């Protein structure tokens, strides 16, 4: 054994190397407070290791990036832990850096002859922040995309070169593949290489000058090995345990839905350690000042600290400056969080504007999580297509439906469940001269379902804003009467104070009509009711006793020309036709002003909504895709 060691040592000089690195003298002996530097090195090494493994799964590019991170997060065994460690260890680095820096300033370890090493430390700080910034974009999720976009927008601010810098960083005029390839190359190649180089210099210079401590009588000097190494090791292990605990507790790092450049994201925030810069942007009148001049000046002061220390009270100034800086950053961070979570922190607050702004943030965040869960369901259902996750999103009624509804339908219709949750319609009608001006249209939540039609046929409910209460059909004329040929008058005249038996009949009518919609979620119950004759009975009541077909057409019974067609009422085909052109004779075309205010969304003359958009709306309103398993079962049952 000894022979082997000597053989190697003769050829490499390894003994001296080991001796030099381990037997560094520590004046005054090993101390716990010397561990921060080693912890930072350990954190960086952890990032290199976990980063390389993540690299084995990651694929830069706007179709692949999110998909590959999703895969790491949800499919790769232990992938979420790997990504979690990388994510939270990065945060640990950002926490440890200022601690290390404060120590250096406090112990006067930045003063002569250690100025250059202090400056190297500042360079390391910048590189670490660069790693944080570039890493945040790589998952290409909503959060990372929009937060990073703010940062790159700011890069265009400096005069003359700004716009070119921005173009170089983004890799073109817009975000895309090349933004990711560049950020990834910086994050995994350029910046870590720089960091290793500067760190090597930093350590070499640290060794040259030794620890900034005096030998004391009380405590003898010690070598780095093994006392200090043990302390460092314990601290690093502790750090790792804490990071693992956070990973475990948080369920790994957050991933939001895939980036949708034209959709926007109302909860776009940078990583928490950049929040103070984010908040500072709200304060300054000029962005150039807020984003570049002020941070630049602060950094200049940091750079000049070793020189300032040479004048009288210079060191005291430096310490004070750092304290003020950290307190300011903390206050700004707190303010940013407070503004975002105001509605949650102060549920009883009367500050409407603050609550509203905070609600928007909280809701957007909740919506993003909701969308993410939905995308996860879609991926489990059909996998990620080669065109990328955006294709899943754009073709999913559950995600696109509400967006399209909010944009194109909610100026009249609402879509709210029994608890009032969902998409609110227009504000309630104003009373002008004691008369209600209709401003809305029916609530389409559960449209054409059994419950929806049962309520429509209820004299009390049909005049509420959920049905015709907010339309011309629900308005009384000057004599206090509803339009005698209208649905409201029919329901009021014929369906008020029904006997229990008649109520049962009415239910059957509603169920039979709802059957026209062929809703997947009612299919099981409808199959049962078809067997026991309820559906047929309802159909008979519809066309005979109830007299629905006196006005409406249903299948072969009745004629068009007095009321909308009930054939296939609420079915995909019916809804599509209704949205395309409500003025068609099948719908409200029977009379000049029968259609209250609904526009035709797609006619040969013009399209307000594309066929694809209408398809999304129709399937969402029918809740066809809400339960993907049920949909699959239904389509199998059909075959």
């Amino acid at each position, binding site marked *: 054994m000894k022979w082997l060691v000597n053989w190697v040592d003769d050829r490499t000089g390894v003994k001296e190397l080991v001796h030099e690195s381990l037997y560094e003298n520590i004046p005054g002996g090993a101390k716990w407070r010397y561990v921060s530097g080693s912890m930072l090195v350990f954190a960086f090494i952890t990032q290199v290791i976990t980063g390389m493994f993540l690299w084995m799964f990651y694929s830069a590019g706007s179709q692949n990036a999110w998909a590959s991170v999703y895969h790491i997060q949800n499919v790769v065994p232990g992938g979420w832990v790997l990504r979690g460690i990388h994510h939270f260890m990065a945060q640990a680095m950002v926490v440890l850096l200022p601690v290390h820096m404060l120590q250096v300033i406090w112990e006067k370890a930045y003063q002569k002859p250690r100025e250059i090493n202090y400056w190297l430390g500042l360079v390391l700080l910048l590189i670490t922040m660069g790693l944080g910034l570039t890493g945040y974009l790589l998952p290409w999720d909503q959060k990372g995309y929009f937060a990073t976009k*703010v940062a790159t927008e700011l890069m265009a601010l400096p005069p003359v070169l700004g716009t070119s810098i921005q173009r170089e960083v983004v890799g*073109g005029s*817009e975000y895309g593949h090349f933004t990711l390839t560049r950020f990834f190359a910086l994050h995994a190649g350029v910046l870590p290489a720089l960091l290793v180089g500067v760190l090597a210099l930093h350590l070499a210079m640290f060794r040259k000058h030794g620890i900034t401590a005096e030998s004391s009588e009380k405590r003898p000097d010690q070598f780095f090995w093994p006392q200090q190494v043990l302390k460092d090791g314990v601290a690093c292990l502790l750090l790792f345990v804490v990071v693992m605990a956070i990973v475990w507790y948080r369920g790994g790092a957050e991933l939001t839905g895939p980036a949708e450049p034209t959709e926007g994201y109302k909860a776009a925030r940078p990583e928490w350690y950049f929040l103070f810069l984010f908040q500072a942007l709200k*304060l300054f009148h000029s962005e150039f000042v807020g984003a570049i001049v002020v941070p630049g000046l602060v950094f200049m002061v940091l750079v000049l600290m070793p020189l300032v220390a040479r004048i009288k009270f210079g060191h005291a100034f430096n310490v004070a400056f750092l304290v003020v800086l950290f307190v300011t950053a903390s206050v700004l961070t707190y303010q940013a969080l407070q503004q975002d979570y105001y509605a949650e922190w102060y549920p009883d607050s009367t500050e409407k504007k603050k609550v509203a*702004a905070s609600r928007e943030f909280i809701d957007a965040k909740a919506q993003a999580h909701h969308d993410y869960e939905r995308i996860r369901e879609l991926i489990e259902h059909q996998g990620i297509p080669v065109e990328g996750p955006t294709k899943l999103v754009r073709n999913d009624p559950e995600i696109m439906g509400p967006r399209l509804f909010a944009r194109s339908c909610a100026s009249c219709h609402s879509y709210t469940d029994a608890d009032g949750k969902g998409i609110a319609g227009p504000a309630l009608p104003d009373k002008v001269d004691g008369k209600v001006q209709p401003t809305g249209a029916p609530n389409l939540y559960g449209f054409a379902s059994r419950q929806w039609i049962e309520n429509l046929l209820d004299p009390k409910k049909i005049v509420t804003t959920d049905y015709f209460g907010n339309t011309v059909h629900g308005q009384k004329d000057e004599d206090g009467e509803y339009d005698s040929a209208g649905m409201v008058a029919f329901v009021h005249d014929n369906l008020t104070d029904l006997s229990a038996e008649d109520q049962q009949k009415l239910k059957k009518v509603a169920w039979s009509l709802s059957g026209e919609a062929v809703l997947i979620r009612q299919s099981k119950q409808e199959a049962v009711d078809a067997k026991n004759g309820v559906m047929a009975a309802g159909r008979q009541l519809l066309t005979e006793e109830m007299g629905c077909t006196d006005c409406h057409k249903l299948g072969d019974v009745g004629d068009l020309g007095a009321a909308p067609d009930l054939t296939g009422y609420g079915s995909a085909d019916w809804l599509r036709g209704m949205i395309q052109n409500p003025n068609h004779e099948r719908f409200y075309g029977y009379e000049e002003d029968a259609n209250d205010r609904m526009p035709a969304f797609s006619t040969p003359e013009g399209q307000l909504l594309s066929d694809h958009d209408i398809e999304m709306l129709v399937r969402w309103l029918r809740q066809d895709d809400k339960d993907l398993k049920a949909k699959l079962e239904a389509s199998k049952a059909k075959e």
Partner: protein
Amino acid sequence: MSDRTDAQDTQAGEPAGKRRGFLVEIAAIVVGTLAGLGPLAVGLYAVLMEPFRQRTVPRKYNQATGSGGTSEDEYFITTIDSLSNDGVPRRFEVIADKFDGWNYIPNQPIGAIYLSKQPLDNDGKSPQEWEVVAFQTTCPHAGCSVSYEQSDEAFLCPCHNSSFNLDGTKREQEGSHNPSPRPLDRLTVNEAKLADDEIWVEFFDFYTGNKEKVRKA
């Protein structure tokens, strides 16, 4: 080398093989730098020039006459009847062909705009009582995406609290600071096409954070 020079060198205190020559030193530095800079220069050239490269539309799509508008950046958005008369803005996606790195993707959303009909204060000179107003959805402050809030009747930015009135001007609210350096970026609506009830808008992005509205190339 001869014995004589050897002796001379030894006298000067340095062995002949170790004599430094100024020219040799210069040459070593230049050659070494060149060798090192070569690969760096080629790499930097590729990376720095690429973002400024002229994008060529694939032949198949080049046949079509661009966006169909009067200028290259003019796009059909919607028809006039999709806008309500009460002046409430609606958000529309701008659909166009797009480059993304090595991909060419036809008919992609490339951005979003807000359209609304705003009443015209023209003393009844024009037969039209309103005009169609188009705004970029990108906030001129830091590039987040503004959204219209009915309850405030304003465009609000979710990032740094910028807010804008329906006509795009900055809204100054008591107790909150509006950091935007300029009004919301207005886009040009083609008047001629408007006569045919079609809304065509000249769409592009602007640099954010400046007082002036500067178009991104």
